[in-house]
């Protein structure tokens, strides 16, 4: 059976000149990183820029020898993404530009299913918009845990490390987030109306 290389093994080979190894890392982690960024940044073009910037910054840091293996490559990458998001919001605040809420673009790639009719697609889009709103209405600390856990697939241990809290606190935030979302679902009468 072919052994899958660890993230660190891929990084080591990349530093030694094996270009394809970083491409493998991108393929391995792209969805986690993109999910995290796109749930914070509503402007699709900007989310895509930050997504690319994250990986480019990872390369720069790896080449400068700033990554030391501790088996937490993805946590480190997510922290870079997190910092880029924070930087962006700081810039926006300084420039006092329009809020991200002004964007109505649909960030999420809807699967083009041939057997879906227009009505189904509209319902799906509405549900996705509702979910987005649910998540955006959560307190910052709860929202972060939901995104990192559910959409980026990180473990509570990794989330605790990224957010600088204990595992119990991360679990508690997740629980409160779920309770809050369920409450909002009931209040706003949001439910799945299709399978």
């Amino acid at each position, binding site marked *: 059976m072919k052994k899958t290389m660890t993230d660190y093994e891929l990084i080591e080979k990349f530093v030694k000149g094996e270009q394809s190894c*970083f491409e493998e890392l991108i393929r391995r982690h792209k969805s986690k990183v993109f999910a995290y960024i796109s749930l914070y940044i509503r402007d699709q073009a900007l989310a895509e820029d930050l997504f690319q910037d994250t990986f480019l910054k990872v390369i720069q840091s790896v080449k400068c020898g700033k990554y030391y293996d501790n088996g937490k490559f993805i946590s480190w990458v997510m922290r870079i993404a997190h910092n880029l998001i924070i930087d962006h919001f700081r810039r926006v605040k300084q420039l006092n530009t329009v809020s991200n809420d002004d964007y109505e673009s649909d960030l999420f790639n809807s699967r083009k299913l041939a057997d879906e009719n227009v009505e189904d697609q509209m319902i799906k889009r509405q549900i996705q918009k509702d979910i987005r709103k649910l998540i955006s209405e959560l307190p910052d600390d709860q929202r972060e845990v*939901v995104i990192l856990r559910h959409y980026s697939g990180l473990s509570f241990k990794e989330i605790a490390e990224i957010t600088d809290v204990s595992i119990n606190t991360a679990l508690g935030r997740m*629980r409160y987030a779920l309770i809050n979302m369920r409450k909002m679902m009931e209040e706003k009468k949001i439910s799945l109306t299709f399978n």
Partner: protein
Amino acid sequence: MAKTSTPFLSYHEIQVGNIDIYDDAFGLSQEFSDVFNLLDQLKPVPKKRLTKLLIERVRQMN
């Protein structure tokens, strides 16, 4: 050991790949399955074009 006994699994044979032990211990998935089912309707994934563009930029850097 009787012939009908359950085969013993070694620690490394236990599949825990996608299970978070804390999540599992807290039973969040079971208790909030309705919320998770709703959240699952959102699948933010980068478009192929974006991944391709990123890989091209990475190649240019080297």
